[in-house]
C-alpha cells in the first residue's frame, strides 16, 4: 500500500427496500492504475458505481478523494469532483453534436462559444485518436465512437477517476483494442480507471488490480498477476470449481429423436442475412458468436419478431408461414427475448397477468382466461419454478432479475410449446437461478421439447447444447457437434481460426 491512494471508499452501505445492496464495502483506487471491479450480476458493482457517481446516496460509510473526505450529491457533483463515468448504455444526447456532448452541462459562461468548443473538441479527438468530427451529430456516430466521445469528455474534464462501466460490450475486437490503447494512455497520465466488465480476458489484458464483490460484500482485492483466472471465477461466484461442473457430469446429453421439428431455408429478415437452420424434436442447440454477430437477429427471424423478408419454413414437415410472432406461437414456438426489460416483462402488471399473457394471446381476445383459472396457473408455476414473489399480484417489475426471467419462462411454458427459443435467459441473474434454468432446459428436452439456447457464456452452452451454430459478422460460419463441442474449438470458430 505504498502507492498514493486516489480514491478510498470505506464501509459503504446502501440499502434498498428489502435488500442490503452494499454491506460495508471497501474499495481503493490508486493513481495511474486500471482497477477491475468484478462480480456477478447483483453482486453490487453497479450500486457501488452509482454511489460513487452520486446517482444513489449511500446509507453509510465514507468516500475520500486524495485523502479529502467528500460527499457526492449528484452526477454533476461527482463530475466537478473529478469523478467521471462512461456507462454501458450511452448516456449522451444523440440530437446534439459531438462537441456539444463533450462540453454540455459543465461550468462556463452562459454564452456558448461554439467555434472555440469545436476547435477544442477536434484537437482532443485527434489527440486521442477518436475518428469523429466535432460538428457531427452524435447520433450519426457508431456506438464505439459514441463511447469514446464520452471518454473524451471525461478526459477534458481533467477527471482523476474514470469509471468505465461495461464499455466493451458493444464493441468489436478492433474497437476494443483502440479503447484499451486509450485507457493505457490515460493511465500513464495518472488517471485512476475503474473498469467494470464481464469479459475475463479483457480484465487480464488491461487491468493492474482486481476487486471482487459478491452479494453486496467485498471478497477481496488482488493484484491481477497474482490471481489466476479460475480462482477469480470461483471468488466471483463463491462456488468451488467441482460444483460448477456438477451439472455437466450428472446430466447426460440425450441425443434427440431423428424427427425434425422446424426447418428453415434461406430465412432472412430486415435484420438478419439469409441462413439455413433446423432443429429436431427434443434437441437442444445453440447459436453462438460475439455480440452483434447476428445470433439474436437469426432467432428473431425464426420467431417472426422482425420483418421477415424471405425464405421457406417447414414446421413438422409442413410448410409454414411465420411472419409475425403470433404465427410462430400458433406453430408452438415460444421466444424469450434477449432484453428482458424492453421485450420481456410488462413491469407494472402482476406476476399472474405476466404469466398468462402468451396463453391468453393464443386463446384470442374473445376467450379470456377466467380469474380463478389464471390464479391456478400462476400459483402452479410460481411453485414449479420456485419464483420468489410476495404474491401472485405483485407487479413483476419489483421482482429481482432472476425471478422476472422465471416469470417469462413460466409464460412460455404455460403455452406448452414444442419449440422454445431462449435468447440469453441467464443474463443478469444469479448463479443459482442460472443452474436452475439450465436444468430446466435439459428437462424440457427430455420431454421432447426442442430448445434453442443462446448465451454469452460459451461454457453454459457447452453444458446444455448438443449442437452449436457459430456466427460471425452476421453469417453462419460453422456448426459444431460431438467431440468438437469444446471451448477451444468454439473459440477458434468464433475467431475464424477454423480450417
Amino acid at each position, binding site marked *: 500500500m505504498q502507492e498514493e491512494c486516489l480514491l478510498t471508499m470505506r464501509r459503504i452501505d446502501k440499502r434498498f427496500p428489502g435488500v442490503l445492496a452494499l454491506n460495508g464495502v471497501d474499495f481503493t483506487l490508486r493513481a495511474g492504475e486500471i482497477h477491475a471491479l468484478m462480480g456477478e450480476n447483483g453482486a453490487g458493482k453497479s450500486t457501488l458505481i452509482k454511489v460513487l457517481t452520486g446517482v444513489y446516496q449511500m446509507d453509510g460509510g465514507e468516500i475520500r478523494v486524495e485523502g479529502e473526505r467528500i460527499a457526492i450529491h449528484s452526477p454533476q457533483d461527482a463530475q466537478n469532483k473529478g469523478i467521471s463515468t462512461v456507462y454501458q448504455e450511452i*448516456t449522451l444526447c444523440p*440530437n446534439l453534436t459531438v462537441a456539444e456532448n463533450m462540453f454540455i452541462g459543465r461550468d462556463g459562461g452562459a*454564452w*456558448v462559444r*461554439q467555434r472555440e468548443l469545436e476547435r477544442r473538441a477536434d484537437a482532443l479527438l485527434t489527440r486521442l485518436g477518436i475518428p469523429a468530427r466535432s460538428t457531427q451529430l452524435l447520433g450519426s456516430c457508431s456506438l464505439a465512437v459514441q463511447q469514446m466521445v464520452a471518454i473524451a469528455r471525461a478526459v477534458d474534464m481533467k477527471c482523476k477517476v474514470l469509471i468505465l462501466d461495461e464499455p466493451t460490450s458493444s464493441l468489436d475486437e478492433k474497437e476494443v483494442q483502440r479503447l484499451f490503447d486509450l485507457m493505457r494512455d490515460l493511465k500513464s497520465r495518472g488517471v485512476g480507471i475503474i473498469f467494470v466488465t464481464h469479459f475475463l480476458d479483457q480484465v487480464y489484458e488491461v487491468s493492474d488490480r482486481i476487486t471482487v464483490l459478491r452479494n453486496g460484500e467485498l471478497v477481496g482485492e488482488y493484484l491481477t498477476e497474482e490471481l489466476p483466472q479460475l480462482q477469480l471465477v470461483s471468488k466471483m461466484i463463491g462456488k468451488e470449481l467441482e460444483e460448477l461442473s456438477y451439472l455437466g457430469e450428472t446430466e447426460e446429453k440425450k441425443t434427440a429423436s431423428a424427427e425434425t421439428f422446424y426447418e428453415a431455408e434461406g430465412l432472412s429478415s430486415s435484420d438478419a442475412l439469409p441462413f439455413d437452420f433446423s432443429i429436431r424434436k427434443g434437441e437442444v442447440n445453440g447459436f453462438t458468436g460475439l455480440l452483434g454477430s447476428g445470433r439474436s437477429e437469426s432467432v428473431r427471424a425464426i420467431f417472426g419478431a422482425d420483418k421477415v423478408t424471405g425464405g421457406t419454413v417447414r414446421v413438422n414437415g409442413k410448410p409454414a408461414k411465420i411472419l409475425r410472432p403470433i404465427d410462430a406461437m400458433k406453430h408452438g414456438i415460444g421466444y424469450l427475448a434477449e432484453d428482458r426489460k424492453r421485450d420481456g416483462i410488462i413491469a407494472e402488471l402482476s406476476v399472474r397477468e405476466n404469466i398468462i399473457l402468451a396463453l391468453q394471446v393464443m386463446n384470442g381476445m374473445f376467450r379470456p382466461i377466467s380469474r380463478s383459472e389464471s390464479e391456478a396457473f400462476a400459483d402452479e408455476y410460481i411453485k414449479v419454478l420456485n419464483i420468489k414473489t410476495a404474491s401472485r399480484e405483485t407487479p413483476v417489475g419489483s421482482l429481482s432479475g432472476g425471478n422476472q426471467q422465471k416469470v417469462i419462462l413460466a409464460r412460455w411454458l404455460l403455452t406448452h410449446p414444442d419449440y422454445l427459443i431462449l435468447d440469453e435467459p441467464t443474463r443478469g441473474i444469479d448463479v443459482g437461478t442460472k443452474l436452475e434454468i439450465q436444468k430446466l432446459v435439459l428437462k424440457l428436452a427430455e420431454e421432447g421439447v426442442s430448445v434453442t439456447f443462446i448465451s454469452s457464456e460459451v461454457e453454459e452452452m457447452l453444458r446444455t447444447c448438443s449442437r452449436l451454430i457459430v456466427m460471425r459478422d452476421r453469417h453462419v460460419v460453422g456448426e459444431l457437434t460431438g467431440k468438437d463441442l469444446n471451448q477451444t474449438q468454439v473459440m477458434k470458430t468464433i475467431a475464424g481460426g477454423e480450417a
Partner: protein
Amino acid sequence: MRKLSLLKRKEPLSDTQLLMTITIGIFFVMYILAMILLGGGFLHAQQLFDMLNDNASLIIVSCGLTIVMIGGGIDISVGAVTSLTVMSCALYLNSGGSLIASMLIAIGIGLAFGLVQGFLISYLEIQPFIVTLAGMFFARGMTTILSVNPQKANHKAFAALREKKIKIDALGYRAKNGNLVPGTIEIGVVVAIVCVILVFLLLKNIRLGRNIYAMGGNQQSALMLGINVKRTRFMSYLISGLLSGVAGYVFLMHTGAGNATNAAGMEMNAIASAIIGGTLLTGGVGNVIGTFFGTLSLTTIKKIVVSSGLNAPWWQSITTGGMLCFFILLQSVVLGRRAKKKKT
C-alpha cells in the same frame, strides 16, 4: 460568415434542419404559386405585412411554445395567458395607468404564470398537460372575472404608441383611386421578430438553450451529463410564460381592446405552427425559425382559401386541418425513412 456556413455544409442535415428546410421550401412554393395563380393581394408586399401584423402575437407565443416543446414538454396555457394579459392591460390603461407600468404588468402576468406552472411541473413533477390545462382554465376564467364586456383601451399615450407604424413607401402600392398606400408594419411585428431572433440565439448559443435540447433529446442522459434538468425545465416554462405576456401586449397594440374571447384557440394554432415548423412533441428536435415559417404557412393557406373564393366559413379550418395532416404525415414519413437508413 459565408465561409463558416460553407464549412457547416460538410455535415448532413440534422432532423431539425431538414424539417425546417422542408417547411420553408413549402412556404415559398405556396406563396409564389399564390402570386402566380391568384395574383391580387399576393402581388403586394402589404399582403405579407398584413399577415405579420395580424399574427405578431401568435408568432411570439409560438416561439415560447417551441422552447417548451423542444424540451419535451407542452404548454397549452399560452393563449389564455395572452388573453388575460390583453384584458388586464386594457383595464389598467383605462383606469389611467402609465404606459410603462402597463408593459410591466404584461410581463409580470406572463412571468407569474411561467413561474407557477414551471414550479409545479419541474419541481413537483406534475404532468405538464394537466398543469398548463389548469393554467389555461385559470387565465380564461380570470379574464371573464375581470370583465365580460369588451374593453377598448382609451389611453392617450397608448393610442399614440399604437399609431406608431413603420411605413415604407417603396413597398407600397397604388390604391384604386391612385393614392399611394405605403407598406405598413406595426411595432408588434418588430417585437415579434426581435423575439424570434432572441429565442433563436437562446436556443443556439446560450447554455440554457443547448441544455433544453439535451433535456428534450434524452432526459436521463441530460441528467448524467450534469445538466440541472429541473432548473432547465423550469426556465423553459418561465420563458414561455414571459413570451405569452409579451404576446398579450402586442395583441393589445394590434386590436386596441380587451375581449373575453381574445386569442381563442391560440394555443392550438401555436402548437400547429411549431409542428409545421418541424418541432417534434417528443422533444429534442425543433427550431424557432421553422416555427416562424410555420406560422406564416398557416396564415398563407388561410389567405389562399379566402382569395380563391372558398367563402363558406368552414373551408379555412378544414384546409388548415388538411395542411396540418400533410405536415404531420410528412414528418412521420421523413423521420421514419431516416431511422431506417441509419439502421442499415
